[in-house]
C-alpha cells in the first residue's frame, strides 16, 4: 500500500512535467495546424540553456526558467516568422517534413555544441526530499510539478482572458473572420509559435532538474508530448494537464507492476485506446 502511494505520487509529479512538455505542442498544433516534430528538440535546447545558466553563471534552474523561456520564445518567433510561416496553410505532410528536418538539424547542432555527454542540473536541494509519513517527495520534483501546474493554469487563463489569447483562439477557429477584424496572421502565428517554444524551453529547464539531458532526448519527448496532446485534446490547456497526469501515473504503475521496459508500451497503448473511444480527447467535446 505504501509502495502504491509512493508510485502514485511519483506518477503525479512526473505527469505535471509531462503536461508542460505537451502544452506548447498542443498550442502550436491547435492554432497553426503544425504537428511540430522538433518540439522535443526545443525542450532539449531549453534544458541545455538552463544547464549553462546554472553551471557557468550559477543561476538557480527555477529562477533561470524565465530567462530560458524568453530566449526560446524569441527563437520560436523568429523561426516562425522566417521559415514556418511558409507552410502554415500547407498540407500537413509538408509541415511534418520541415519540422522533422528542423529536429535533425537541432539535434546534431546540439551534439556538436554540447557533446553527447549526459548533463544534469544539480542544485543544492537536488537530493533532498520531504517525508510525508511513509511516502517520500523529492523537493526538486515537487517544485517542478508546482511550476508546471502554474504554467498550465496560467496558459489557460491567458488564452481565455487576454486580448492576445482571444485572438489566438479566434484565428484557430476562423481565419477569415479573424483577418476581417484586423488580426495580422503572420505576427499572430509567430507569437503563438514563440509561446509554444517558450513553454518547451521552460519544460526543458524543469526536465533538466529531474532527469538527464543529452542531444537525443528530443524524439522521445516529442512522441510523449504528442500522445499527451491527443489524450487531453487540443481545445483546452487543462486537457493537457489531465493527459499528462494520466500518462505519468500509468507509466509509473506499469514500470512497477509490469516491468521497466513497458512504460512506453502502456503510454502509447492508452493513446490508441483514447483514439478509439474518445477521439477528441478526454476533456474534448464529443460531437
Amino acid at each position: 500500500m505504501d509502495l502504491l502511494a509512493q508510485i502514485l505520487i511519483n506518477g503525479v509529479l512526473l505527469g505535471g512535467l509531462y503536461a508542460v512538455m505537451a502544452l506548447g505542442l498542443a498550442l502550436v498544433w491547435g492554432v497553426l495546424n503544425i504537428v511540430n516534430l522538433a518540439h522535443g528538440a526545443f525542450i532539449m535546447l531549453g534544458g541545455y540553456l538552463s544547464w549553462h545558466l546554472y553551471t557557468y553563471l550559477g543561476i538557480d534552474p527555477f529562477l533561470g526558467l524565465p530567462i530560458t523561456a524568453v530566449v526560446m520564445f524569441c527563437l520560436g518567433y523568429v523561426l516562425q516568422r522566417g521559415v514556418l510561416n511558409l507552410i502554415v496553410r500547407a498540407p500537413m505532410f509538408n509541415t511534418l517534413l520541415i519540422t522533422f528536418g528542423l529536429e535533425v538539424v537541432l539535434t546534431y547542432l546540439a551534439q556538436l555544441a554540447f557533446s553527447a555527454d549526459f548533463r544534469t542540473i544539480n542544485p543544492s536541494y537536488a537530493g533532498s526530499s520531504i517525508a510525508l509519513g511513509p511516502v517520500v517527495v523529492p523537493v526538486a520534483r515537487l517544485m517542478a510539478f508546482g511550476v508546471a501546474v502554474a504554467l498550465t493554469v496560467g496558459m489557460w487563463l491567458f488564452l481565455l482572458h487576454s486580448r492576445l489569447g482571444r485572438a489566438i483562439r479566434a484565428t484557430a477557429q476562423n481565419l477569415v473572420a479573424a483577418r476581417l477584424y484586423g488580426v495580422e496572421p503572420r505576427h499572430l502565428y509567430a507569437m503563438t509559435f514563440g509561446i509554444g517554444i517558450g513553454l518547451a524551453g521552460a519544460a526543458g529547464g524543469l526536465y533538466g532538474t529531474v532527469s538527464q539531458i543529452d542531444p537525443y532526448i528530443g524524439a522521445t519527448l516529442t512522441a510523449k508530448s504528442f500522445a499527451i496532446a491527443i489524450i487531453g485534446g487540443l481545445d483546452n490547456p487543462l486537457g493537457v494537464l489531465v493527459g499528462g497526469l494520466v500518462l505519468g501515473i500509468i507509466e509509473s504503475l506499469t514500470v512497477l507492476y509490469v516491468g521497466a521496459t513497458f512504460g512506453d508500451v502502456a503510454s502509447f497503448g492508452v493513446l490508441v485506446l483514447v483514439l478509439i473511444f474518445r477521439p477528441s480527447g478526454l476533456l474534448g467535446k464529443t460531437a
Partner: protein
Amino acid sequence: MSAAAEKGTAGEPVLVVDGLGAGYGEMPVLKGVSLEIRRAEIVALVGSNGAGKTTLLRALSRVIACTGKASFLGRDLVPLTPDEAFGAGLVQVPEGRQLFDRMTVEDNLLMGAYRRADKAAIAGDLERMYGLFPRLGERRRQLAGSMSGGEQQMCAMARGLMARPQLLMIDEMSLGLAPVVVEQLMEVLATIRGEGVTVLLVEQDIHLALSGADRGYVMETGSIVHSGDAKALIDDPAVRKAYLGL
C-alpha cells in the same frame, strides 16, 4: 450614370465609387460600377445570385484588386490594404456570419474591437450592444455556435459594430432567417443609423432590402441597372417585373 448625379440625403459622402471594375484572374465580374453612400444612410445593394454584389464588397474591402475610382471619407480607397481599409472604418459583416463558433458571444464581440486600445470605451460599447440586442446580453457567456441563426446574425452585426465602423457593410443579412427576426434586425439598423452609422445592406431579397433602406442600387451581371429612392424602386415597373415577379 454618374454617381454624383444621384440625389442623396443631407449627409456628407462616406463612400463614392466611380467606374469600379474587378474580377478574378482573367474573368471580369464588375464592369464599371458607380455608387455613392452618404452619412447615416441605409443603402441597399440588391441583385440576384451571381450579380457581383459580393465581388463589389470584396473590392471595397481591398481583398481583391480593382480598377477605377473609389474614395472613402475623402480618402482614396484603391491603394489601401485590407487592414488599412478596416482601420479607416470600412467594416464588413460577412455572408454566413463567420462567427468564432466555439467562443462566447462576449469574446466574439471583443474580437470586433481587437484593433481598439480604448479599454473603457470598449466596455461601454459592449454594454451598448447588449442594450441594442438584449438577446445577446442574456447569452453573453454562451458559445456563439450554439445559438439560433437569428441570434448568430445579431452577434455578427454586434461584432461589426464593436469595431466602431464608419460604414457597416452587411452581406446577406436575412439569408435563412425567419421574417420576424429579419424585422427585428431591420429595426436595429434604423436605431444605429440614428446614431450616425452608415449601412450598406447587400441582399438577394430585393423587396426586403428595399423596404428597409433609404436608397437602393440594383445590380445585374456586374453593372448597376437601376438606382434611386428605395420606395420608388419598389414601385418601378421594370424592377417589379424583373425581380419581384409582380
